[in-house]
């Protein structure tokens, strides 16, 4: 699925000064003065950023700041109201695993195989080859030995990895992870970190919507959104108090002893507590 949403002329701009030079890849996403929204009213505007194959991009912003809207545009579900958005490849979404139906009668392999539909015409059904590809994707995310288990029997972190496998079966170049750390214990969170790194190492671009500024500091780029684009760039250059206050509306808690970077938004949640669920997280604007 080649989601070309560009309704304006495509520009070629020079690569930015820092950060991704160690991965000289092709450009995957280009957003130019992008505005997106519903019924002609923009929810998110003035978005300008570029992303390369093989990068990890943290998407920071408050609930209702436009993260989900940007995801929907990157998936091709929303057309730009103005400006342009070009995605040079297939994108796939990895929804929050605590929203999936646990009583649904499917195996992990069934779920991973669903990704193949993205590559098939409407009358085509997934073949044995597609199932083999799905099994391979399960192996990639470390769930190869659980292929025949019921999806509903897995833990949150495991379900998440199966949903990532579904995106891999779709042969997506761009993976959109919606609040993937919500509800994970610290072990699962570390495992997800490694997996995201591996995916990027294989040349896939992973975009991660998160409330966790600390987490985002380890990635290649951060994109801060609060109805408009507040900042985009390498986390070390971008994440300062001013940007975070503009992103989260000024309610910032400073962590003692880590001036400059140790700034957390009020939504930060505790990775040690797998039961904790904040219902307000990741809601659609």
């Amino acid at each position, binding site marked *: 699925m080649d989601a070309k949403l560009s309704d304006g002329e495509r520009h070629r701009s020079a690569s930015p000064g820092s950060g991704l030079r160690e991965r000289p890849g092709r450009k995957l996403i280009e957003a130019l003065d992008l505005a997106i929204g519903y019924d002609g009213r923009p929810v998110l505007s003035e978005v300008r950023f570029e992303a390369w194959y093989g990068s990890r991009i943290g998407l920071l912003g408050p609930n209702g700041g436009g993260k989900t809207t940007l995801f929907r545009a990157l998936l091709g579900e929303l057309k730009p109201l103005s400006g342009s958005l070009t995605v040079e490849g297939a994108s796939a979404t990895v929804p929050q695993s605590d929203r999936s139906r646990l009583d649904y009668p*499917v195996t992990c392999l069934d779920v991973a195989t*669903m990704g193949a*539909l993205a590559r098939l015409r409407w009358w085509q059904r997934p073949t044995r080859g597609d199932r083999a590809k799905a099994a391979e994707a399960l192996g990639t995310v470390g769930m190869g030995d659980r292929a025949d288990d019921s999806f509903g029997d897995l833990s949150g972190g495991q379900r998440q990895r199966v949903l990532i496998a579904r995106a891999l079966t779709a042969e997506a170049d761009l993976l959109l992870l919606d609040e993937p750390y919500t509800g994970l214990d610290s072990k699962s969170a570390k495992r997800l970190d490694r997996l995201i790194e591996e995916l990027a190492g294989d040349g896939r671009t992973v975009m991660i919507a998160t409330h966790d500024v600390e987490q985002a500091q380890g990635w290649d780029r951060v994109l801060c959104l609060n109805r408009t684009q507040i900042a985009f760039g390498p986390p070390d250059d971008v994440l300062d108090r001013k940007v975070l206050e503009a992103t989260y509306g000024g309610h910032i808690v400073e962590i003692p002893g880590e001036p400059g970077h140790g700034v957390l938004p009020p939504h930060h949640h505790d990775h040690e507590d797998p039961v904790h669920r904040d219902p307000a997280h990741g809601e659609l604007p």
Partner: protein
Amino acid sequence: MIDAIFEPLSYGITLRALAEITLIGIVSGAIGCWIVLYELSYSAESLAHGLFPGLVAAALIGAPLLLGGAVGILIAAILVVVAGRMAGESPDTAIAVVITSLFGAGVLMALSPDSPAGLQGLLFGDLLGTTVTDILVAAVIGSAVLVALWLLHERLLAVGFDPGSGPALGVPVGVLNLILLGLVATTILVAVQGLGNLLVAAILVGPAAAARLLTRRVWPMMLAAGAVAVTAGVAGIYASYYLKTAAGASVVIALVLCYLLAAAAAQLRDRTAAVRH
């Protein structure tokens, strides 16, 4: 004992009823699984009741019931959509108002002095009145529904699991839901002749609900639902032969018993599993 099994089979009436309920059972079992997984039980029952005036009108003017039912179901669907938009009511309320109005209109027509005998067959079904043509029609339409379900299987599975990912997977969710409702309506048209307006929902929902308690994958669920529907259907017809009860109602009672058995079996399984842990 053997005689008890073979005696009813010497009558054409029972043979045809058995053939009809077997066909209805297989198709209902399969599509019933999607009705249960997509939580469409209320819609299915509403569609069944909403087509009643269509059936009555067809019976009054002597048109084929299938045609009357099809027109009735289309009108019901359109009215539900219009009512939902106009009144600003919740979909539930709109459906309830429209469907009860339609059903009332059907009853009024059915109770008019000109109405021919046998209209109660429209309400409670007329399995023992099944003709060879009915069986052929059920076989052709039922096969078409099964082929459509087979073709759409993976997409129905994916969208039922995670509707939000439909667009990213290239599956138009709205269109798929419409097609599924259309297939449900088509199945109702066939099944309503055997089980009638008031009882048809039982064979659409009951077997699949029972199968869901006993299985953990969709294909086995469909096989189990079909088996439950056919077993209950055959048992109901034998019961009606020996106990002189109404065929359709006997089938429904058998379906309910099957569901209760499945629920008990599932309870027992979960308890033994809990004990082992």
